[in-house]
């Protein structure tokens, strides 16, 4: 089933606690998917690139005697490879043993850096961006938020996902959001099933795009990246995707300053939108949006094939 949610503040600066707001919405959607929870949130751009990566799955910690040594080796390899390509690491943080956040200063080819780092066994880059922070892990929103300290996250907008695994495993690799590699600051969450996933995946892989999971939702992120690499703006890329993707879906995309939603031509998956003067909130169910308000609000369902993009 899965639940998705998004929020964008238009005139509030970057001091809104969107971490708390996203957690409230995603926790209200827990019944749609308790397997994993993910956030893509957009905060202050301090000029550095933020790299979020993992060096193992949470389950790996219980399944191998030498995993802790392997994790140390992988982190050391990441540091070494970043250094080799001239990326200066200015800040390191780790919410868990396997999940890391680096702030780096780097002016080179970001795709080359991502490929070089991901070439290390067990390492996956979750996101790279100037303001994007992509966090995902197993458990509900309360668990993940507590684990990563997200209830203090200030920013302008964000998207999130609660996953009920149907097409692939229960692991961080298959959790949403997906970063639109190699574009910095672009992330996607999706509710639905794509029936032309393998055909389109093979075509995109032949063009040099990388897939880190077997989750059909990743196709949306890669496709949006492909269209944007050809010069399309976000809204045009999303409109193209409605024709390109086969199946039932509603998805959200966020960039550094935009939030977009698209719905399939059958309107088979839910989405409820609140559109206020200062804030737009979207979710699979209104019950999530209502966690942000203590009064009655006007909401609506977008229609089949509809694409909407909001600017902060």
């Amino acid at each position, binding site marked *: 089933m899965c639940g998705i949610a998004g929020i964008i503040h238009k005139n509030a600066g970057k001091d809104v606690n969107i971490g708390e707001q996203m957690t409230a919405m995603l926790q209200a959607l827990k019944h749609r998917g308790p397997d994993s929870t993910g956030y893509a949130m957009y905060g202050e751009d301090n000029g550095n690139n933020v790299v979020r990566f993992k060096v193992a799955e949470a389950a790996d910690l219980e399944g191998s005697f030498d995993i802790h040594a392997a994790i140390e080796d992988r982190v050391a390899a990441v540091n070494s490879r970043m250094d080799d390509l001239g990326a200066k690491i200015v800040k390191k943080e780790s919410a868990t043993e396997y999940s890391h956040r680096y702030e780096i200063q780097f002016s080179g080819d970001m795709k080359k850096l991502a490929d070089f780092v991901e070439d290390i066994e067990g390492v996956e880059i979750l996101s790279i961006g100037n303001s994007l922070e992509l966090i995902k892990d197993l458990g509900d929103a309360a668990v993940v938020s507590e684990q990563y300290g997200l209830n203090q996250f200030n920013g302008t907008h964000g998207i999130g996902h609660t996953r009920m695994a149907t097409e692939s495993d229960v692991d961080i690799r298959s959790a949403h959001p997906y970063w639109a590699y190699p574009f910095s600051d672009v992330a996607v969450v999706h509710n639905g099933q794509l029936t032309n996933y393998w055909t389109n995946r093979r075509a995109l892989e032949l063009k040099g795009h990388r897939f880190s999971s077997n989750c059909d939702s990743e196709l949306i992120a890669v496709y949006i990246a492909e269209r944007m690499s050809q010069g399309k703006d976000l809204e045009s890329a999303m409109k193209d995707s409605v024709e390109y993707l086969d199946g039932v879906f509603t998805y959200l995309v966020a960039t550094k300053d935009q939030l977009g939603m698209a719905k399939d031509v059958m*309107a088979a998956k839910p989405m409820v939108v609140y559109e206020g003067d200062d804030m737009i909130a979207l979710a699979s169910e209104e*019950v999530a949006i*209502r966690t942000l308000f203590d009064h009655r*609000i006007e909401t*609506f369902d977008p*229609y*089949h094939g509809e694409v909407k993009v909001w600017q902060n």
Partner: protein
Amino acid sequence: MAELKKDSSYEMGLHQEQLKGRTQQKFFSIDESANLTYFHSFEVDTNKSATIDALDMTPREINREIRALMESGIGNITVDNPMSRHGVGVGILNRLNLTFSDSLGYFGCGLIDGPNVHIKGRVGWSCAENMMAGTVVIDGNAGSTFGAAIRGGDLVCKGSVGARTGIDQKGGTIIVGGKTGAFSGFMMQRGRMIVLGDAGMNLGDSMYDGTIYVGGEVEELGVDCVPGEMTELDVRYLTEKLGNYDMKAPNGVEKMQKYVSGKTLWNYDNLEPAEKKLIL
């Protein structure tokens, strides 16, 4: 009884089976009160009123509280702060004036038979699914599969609704003040749908009975759905029905377009009324 024609199927013995209501014979007991009464249907007094504050209640607690109030004879119930929760106001099988002061989530007021419900907000997917009788009036918008499989009563949304409105509709009336989404009236079997605004693609797809009236533009008709001829009776019906809910067609009911099924389901009209009731 008319003589049965002895055709090949008769000769094959297909008409000789003795149907004895085996399922009922097997499970029916004269000692079980549920077989003699409408279970969980209560006598209520509409001079008695009560209010529930649902702010910190689960859907199950809200429904239990409504039932307890009905059981004690309360005929007017107001639910404050439903907070868009799912599946509330369901399974009410008696007359009742029920008001929700705010929005409901999925499957609100499903499986009801008799109450008059007023929702002062929006409803999520599948509002009033399988409604048998009564009225449900929503002040705001509604999600998809609005009035799925309803068999009777009036289901009214003053705003716009999502996709697949009235899917599998088997009776009753659905009224939409604004737009309706794709596949509205899909597999419609009976009843009426009145849409004052526009209708999305595949309107009335695979419908085989019933009538759809649209006041705005239709994006595309579905398979089997064709324009019908508006009659004086249609105009009178629409005027009176909309008037019951203080609603008006933007361009007048005379300008509304009528849509019906262009194809009769095989053998559909040959069924006896009792057999039709079994199917529908």
